[in-house]
Protein backbone atom coordinates (compact mmCIF):
# COMPACT_ATOMS: atom_id res chain seq x y z
CA UNK A 1 0.00 0.00 0.00
CA UNK A 2 2.83 2.33 1.00
CA UNK A 3 4.83 1.57 -2.13
CA UNK A 4 1.78 2.30 -4.25
CA UNK A 5 1.38 5.73 -2.60
CA UNK A 6 5.07 6.46 -3.13
CA UNK A 7 4.91 5.54 -6.78
CA UNK A 8 1.85 7.75 -7.11
CA UNK A 9 3.77 10.70 -5.63
CA UNK A 10 6.70 10.02 -7.93
CA UNK A 11 4.42 9.93 -10.90
CA UNK A 12 2.85 13.20 -9.85
CA UNK A 13 6.26 14.83 -9.33
CA UNK A 14 7.44 13.64 -12.75
CA UNK A 15 4.27 14.95 -14.34
CA UNK A 16 4.75 18.34 -12.67
CA UNK A 17 8.37 18.47 -13.82
CA UNK A 18 7.44 17.62 -17.41
CA UNK A 19 4.57 20.08 -17.48
CA UNK A 20 6.82 22.78 -16.02
CA UNK A 21 9.29 22.22 -18.86
CA UNK A 22 6.60 22.15 -21.51
CA UNK A 23 4.72 25.20 -20.25
CA UNK A 24 7.89 27.07 -19.34
CA UNK A 25 7.68 30.77 -20.09
CA UNK A 26 10.08 33.59 -19.40
CA UNK A 27 8.76 36.71 -17.77
CA UNK A 28 9.64 39.96 -19.49
CA UNK A 29 9.02 43.57 -18.58
CA UNK A 30 8.03 45.68 -21.56
CA UNK A 31 7.30 49.36 -21.77
CA UNK A 32 6.84 51.72 -24.68
CA UNK A 33 6.90 55.44 -25.24
CA UNK A 34 6.19 57.54 -28.31
CA UNK A 35 6.27 61.30 -28.65
CA UNK A 36 4.86 63.35 -31.45
CA UNK A 37 5.52 66.99 -32.14
CA UNK A 38 2.88 68.81 -34.19
CA UNK A 39 1.28 65.52 -35.28
CA UNK A 40 4.60 64.09 -36.41
CA UNK A 41 6.33 61.26 -34.59
CA UNK A 42 9.68 62.44 -33.29
CA UNK A 43 10.66 59.87 -30.70
CA UNK A 44 9.80 56.25 -30.09
CA UNK A 45 11.32 53.77 -27.70
CA UNK A 46 10.58 50.22 -26.65
CA UNK A 47 12.17 48.82 -23.52
CA UNK A 48 12.39 45.06 -23.14
CA UNK A 49 14.09 43.41 -20.20
CA UNK A 50 13.92 40.06 -18.54
CA UNK A 51 12.19 40.15 -15.19
CA UNK A 52 14.46 39.36 -12.26
CA UNK A 53 11.61 38.02 -10.20
CA UNK A 54 8.71 35.89 -11.40
CA UNK A 55 5.57 37.85 -12.12
CA UNK A 56 2.48 36.84 -10.20
CA UNK A 57 -0.96 37.25 -11.65
CA UNK A 58 -3.45 35.95 -14.11
CA UNK A 59 -2.70 35.56 -17.78
CA UNK A 60 -4.81 37.65 -20.10
CA UNK A 61 -4.72 38.42 -23.78
CA UNK A 62 -1.89 37.05 -25.87
CA UNK A 63 -0.32 37.61 -29.25
CA UNK A 64 1.68 35.24 -31.41
CA UNK A 65 4.46 36.63 -33.56
CA UNK A 66 6.51 34.79 -36.16
CA UNK A 67 10.13 34.36 -35.18
CA UNK A 68 13.08 34.01 -37.57
CA UNK A 69 16.59 32.69 -36.90
CA UNK A 70 16.20 32.42 -33.13
CA UNK A 71 15.84 36.16 -32.82
CA UNK A 72 15.61 37.82 -29.44
CA UNK A 73 12.29 39.12 -28.18
CA UNK A 74 13.16 42.74 -28.96
CA UNK A 75 14.18 41.90 -32.53
CA UNK A 76 11.03 39.84 -33.03
CA UNK A 77 8.88 42.69 -31.76
CA UNK A 78 10.72 45.19 -33.97
CA UNK A 79 10.14 42.93 -36.97
CA UNK A 80 6.41 42.85 -36.23
CA UNK A 81 6.03 46.26 -34.64
CA UNK A 82 2.68 46.99 -36.27
CA UNK A 83 1.05 43.86 -34.84
CA UNK A 84 2.63 44.37 -31.46
CA UNK A 85 1.62 48.01 -31.35
CA UNK A 86 -2.01 47.06 -32.04
CA UNK A 87 -1.77 44.58 -29.19
CA UNK A 88 -0.22 47.20 -26.93
CA UNK A 89 -2.96 49.75 -27.57
CA UNK A 90 -5.57 47.36 -26.18
CA UNK A 91 -4.10 48.02 -22.74
CA UNK A 92 -4.26 51.20 -20.70
CA UNK A 93 -2.02 53.90 -22.10
CA UNK A 94 -0.90 57.06 -20.39
CA UNK A 95 -1.21 60.24 -22.39
CA UNK A 96 0.43 63.55 -21.67
CA UNK A 97 -0.23 66.40 -24.01
CA UNK A 98 1.01 69.97 -23.96
CA UNK A 99 0.02 72.68 -26.38
CA UNK A 100 1.49 76.12 -26.51
CA UNK A 101 -0.02 78.92 -28.53
CA UNK A 102 2.07 82.08 -28.59
CA UNK A 103 0.49 84.84 -30.66
CA UNK A 104 0.02 82.99 -33.94
CA UNK A 105 2.48 80.13 -33.40
CA UNK A 106 1.14 76.78 -32.31
CA UNK A 107 3.14 73.86 -30.92
CA UNK A 108 1.82 70.61 -29.54
CA UNK A 109 3.58 67.65 -27.98
CA UNK A 110 1.86 64.38 -27.23
CA UNK A 111 3.54 61.59 -25.30
CA UNK A 112 1.94 58.18 -25.29
CA UNK A 113 3.33 55.77 -22.73
CA UNK A 114 2.56 52.15 -22.09
CA UNK A 115 3.46 51.64 -18.43
CA UNK A 116 5.89 48.85 -17.62
CA UNK A 117 3.96 45.62 -17.71
CA UNK A 118 4.96 42.02 -17.13
CA UNK A 119 4.50 39.56 -19.98
CA UNK A 120 4.94 35.82 -20.13
CA UNK A 121 6.90 34.96 -23.24
CA UNK A 122 6.90 31.46 -24.73
CA UNK A 123 9.70 30.95 -27.22
CA UNK A 124 9.27 28.36 -29.91
CA UNK A 125 11.26 27.55 -33.03
CA UNK A 126 9.07 29.49 -35.43
CA UNK A 127 6.99 31.74 -33.27
CA UNK A 128 6.82 33.50 -29.94
CA UNK A 129 3.73 33.95 -27.79
CA UNK A 130 3.48 37.02 -25.60
CA UNK A 131 0.86 37.00 -22.87
CA UNK A 132 -0.07 39.81 -20.52
CA UNK A 133 0.26 38.99 -16.84
CA UNK A 134 -2.10 41.16 -14.85
CA UNK A 135 -1.21 41.52 -11.20
CA UNK A 136 -3.92 40.76 -8.65
Amino acid at each position, binding site marked *: MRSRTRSCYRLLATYQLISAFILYADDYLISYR*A*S*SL*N*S*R*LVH*ENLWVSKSMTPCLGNRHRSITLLRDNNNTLKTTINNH*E*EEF*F*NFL*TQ*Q*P*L*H*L*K*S*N*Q*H*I*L*NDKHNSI*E*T*LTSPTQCYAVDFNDDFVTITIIASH
Partner: protein
Amino acid sequence: MKYSLALAFLLSITALNSSLFAETTETKARCVYSGTDGNCVQPSLGSTQQLVITVFGQGVAPTVTASPAQAYALAKRAALADGYRQIAERIQGVHIEGYDSVKNMMLQRSNIRTSVDAMVRGTNVLDTTFKEGLCEVELEVVIAYSQLIN
Protein backbone atom coordinates in the same frame (compact mmCIF):
# COMPACT_ATOMS: atom_id res chain seq x y z
CA MET B 1 -50.80 18.46 -15.94
CA LYS B 2 -51.62 20.23 -12.69
CA TYR B 3 -47.97 20.58 -11.80
CA SER B 4 -47.02 21.94 -15.19
CA LEU B 5 -49.81 24.52 -15.01
CA ALA B 6 -48.70 25.56 -11.54
CA LEU B 7 -45.08 25.83 -12.74
CA ALA B 8 -46.12 27.94 -15.73
CA PHE B 9 -48.16 30.20 -13.42
CA LEU B 10 -45.22 30.62 -11.07
CA LEU B 11 -42.84 31.42 -13.91
CA SER B 12 -45.20 34.01 -15.39
CA ILE B 13 -45.55 35.69 -11.97
CA THR B 14 -41.76 35.84 -11.58
CA ALA B 15 -41.33 37.32 -15.05
CA LEU B 16 -44.04 39.92 -14.43
CA ASN B 17 -42.54 40.78 -11.08
CA SER B 18 -39.07 41.28 -12.50
CA SER B 19 -40.35 43.51 -15.33
CA LEU B 20 -42.49 45.59 -12.97
CA PHE B 21 -39.80 46.19 -10.40
CA ALA B 22 -36.88 46.44 -12.77
CA GLU B 23 -36.74 50.21 -12.38
CA THR B 24 -36.68 50.05 -8.60
CA THR B 25 -33.58 47.82 -8.60
CA GLU B 26 -31.72 50.23 -10.88
CA THR B 27 -28.89 51.96 -9.07
CA LYS B 28 -29.65 55.59 -8.49
CA ALA B 29 -27.30 58.06 -10.10
CA ARG B 30 -25.64 60.16 -7.45
CA CYS B 31 -25.34 63.94 -7.60
CA VAL B 32 -22.50 65.31 -9.65
CA TYR B 33 -22.43 68.50 -7.64
CA SER B 34 -24.83 70.80 -5.87
CA GLY B 35 -26.07 73.55 -8.11
CA THR B 36 -26.08 77.22 -7.24
CA ASP B 37 -29.57 76.80 -5.80
CA GLY B 38 -28.41 73.86 -3.69
CA ASN B 39 -30.32 71.30 -5.73
CA CYS B 40 -28.76 68.08 -6.83
CA VAL B 41 -27.45 68.11 -10.38
CA GLN B 42 -27.85 64.71 -11.99
CA PRO B 43 -25.11 63.47 -14.29
CA SER B 44 -25.89 63.62 -17.99
CA LEU B 45 -24.98 59.95 -18.27
CA GLY B 46 -27.75 57.75 -16.90
CA SER B 47 -27.02 54.79 -14.69
CA THR B 48 -27.92 52.30 -17.38
CA GLN B 49 -26.74 54.27 -20.38
CA GLN B 50 -23.53 53.95 -22.28
CA LEU B 51 -21.73 56.84 -23.85
CA VAL B 52 -19.85 56.24 -27.07
CA ILE B 53 -17.12 58.73 -27.88
CA THR B 54 -15.68 58.68 -31.37
CA VAL B 55 -12.71 60.78 -32.42
CA PHE B 56 -10.53 61.10 -35.49
CA GLY B 57 -6.82 61.34 -34.75
CA GLN B 58 -4.54 62.73 -37.42
CA GLY B 59 -0.85 62.15 -37.91
CA VAL B 60 1.64 63.22 -40.54
CA ALA B 61 4.35 60.98 -41.93
CA PRO B 62 7.94 62.26 -41.54
CA THR B 63 9.49 63.76 -44.66
CA VAL B 64 12.41 61.32 -44.64
CA THR B 65 11.50 57.65 -44.32
CA ALA B 66 13.09 54.42 -45.48
CA SER B 67 9.92 53.10 -47.11
CA PRO B 68 6.22 53.93 -47.58
CA ALA B 69 5.42 51.26 -44.99
CA GLN B 70 7.58 53.03 -42.42
CA ALA B 71 5.92 56.34 -43.27
CA TYR B 72 2.53 54.73 -42.70
CA ALA B 73 3.58 53.14 -39.41
CA LEU B 74 5.05 56.39 -38.04
CA ALA B 75 2.10 58.47 -39.16
CA LYS B 76 -0.26 55.99 -37.53
CA ARG B 77 1.58 56.31 -34.20
CA ALA B 78 1.23 60.09 -34.33
CA ALA B 79 -2.45 59.76 -35.31
CA LEU B 80 -3.10 57.45 -32.37
CA ALA B 81 -1.43 59.88 -29.97
CA ASP B 82 -3.65 62.65 -31.35
CA GLY B 83 -6.74 60.46 -31.03
CA TYR B 84 -5.89 59.52 -27.47
CA ARG B 85 -5.45 63.21 -26.66
CA GLN B 86 -8.89 64.02 -28.02
CA ILE B 87 -10.46 61.21 -26.00
CA ALA B 88 -8.69 62.35 -22.83
CA GLU B 89 -9.76 65.93 -23.50
CA ARG B 90 -13.39 64.90 -23.80
CA ILE B 91 -13.50 62.58 -20.82
CA GLN B 92 -11.16 64.20 -18.35
CA GLY B 93 -11.01 67.76 -19.56
CA VAL B 94 -8.25 70.18 -20.43
CA HIS B 95 -6.18 72.36 -18.16
CA ILE B 96 -5.86 75.79 -19.75
CA GLU B 97 -3.70 78.72 -18.75
CA GLY B 98 -3.82 81.95 -20.64
CA TYR B 99 -1.80 85.14 -20.28
CA ASP B 100 -2.51 88.20 -22.34
CA SER B 101 -0.48 91.35 -22.02
CA VAL B 102 -2.06 94.59 -23.13
CA LYS B 103 -0.22 97.87 -23.55
CA ASN B 104 -1.92 101.13 -24.40
CA MET B 105 -5.14 99.28 -25.07
CA MET B 106 -3.36 97.02 -27.58
CA LEU B 107 -2.69 93.32 -27.29
CA GLN B 108 1.04 92.83 -27.13
CA ARG B 109 1.37 89.18 -26.38
CA SER B 110 -1.07 86.28 -26.19
CA ASN B 111 0.15 83.14 -24.51
CA ILE B 112 -2.07 80.09 -24.09
CA ARG B 113 -0.97 76.77 -22.64
CA THR B 114 -3.16 73.70 -22.56
CA SER B 115 -2.31 70.35 -21.03
CA VAL B 116 -3.92 66.96 -20.66
CA ASP B 117 -2.65 64.17 -18.46
CA ALA B 118 -4.72 61.00 -18.42
CA MET B 119 -4.73 57.24 -18.46
CA VAL B 120 -6.84 55.95 -21.29
CA ARG B 121 -8.06 52.41 -21.62
CA GLY B 122 -10.65 50.49 -23.58
CA THR B 123 -10.19 52.25 -26.90
CA ASN B 124 -10.97 50.53 -30.16
CA VAL B 125 -9.44 51.43 -33.49
CA LEU B 126 -12.36 51.42 -35.91
CA ASP B 127 -10.75 52.56 -39.10
CA THR B 128 -7.40 53.72 -40.45
CA THR B 129 -6.84 55.66 -43.64
CA PHE B 130 -3.57 56.86 -45.12
CA LYS B 131 -3.59 59.33 -47.95
CA GLU B 132 -0.88 61.69 -49.19
CA GLY B 133 1.18 61.38 -46.04
CA LEU B 134 -1.72 61.97 -43.69
CA CYS B 135 -2.93 59.13 -41.52
CA GLU B 136 -6.36 59.34 -39.98
CA VAL B 137 -7.40 56.94 -37.26
CA GLU B 138 -10.96 56.58 -36.04
CA LEU B 139 -10.97 55.74 -32.36
CA GLU B 140 -13.91 54.79 -30.21
CA VAL B 141 -14.30 54.45 -26.49
CA VAL B 142 -17.42 53.26 -24.71
CA ILE B 143 -17.98 54.47 -21.16
CA ALA B 144 -20.73 53.51 -18.76
CA TYR B 145 -21.90 55.09 -15.52
CA SER B 146 -20.73 52.07 -13.56
CA GLN B 147 -17.17 52.71 -14.80
CA LEU B 148 -17.34 56.34 -13.71
CA ILE B 149 -18.36 55.68 -10.11
CA ASN B 150 -15.86 52.85 -9.61
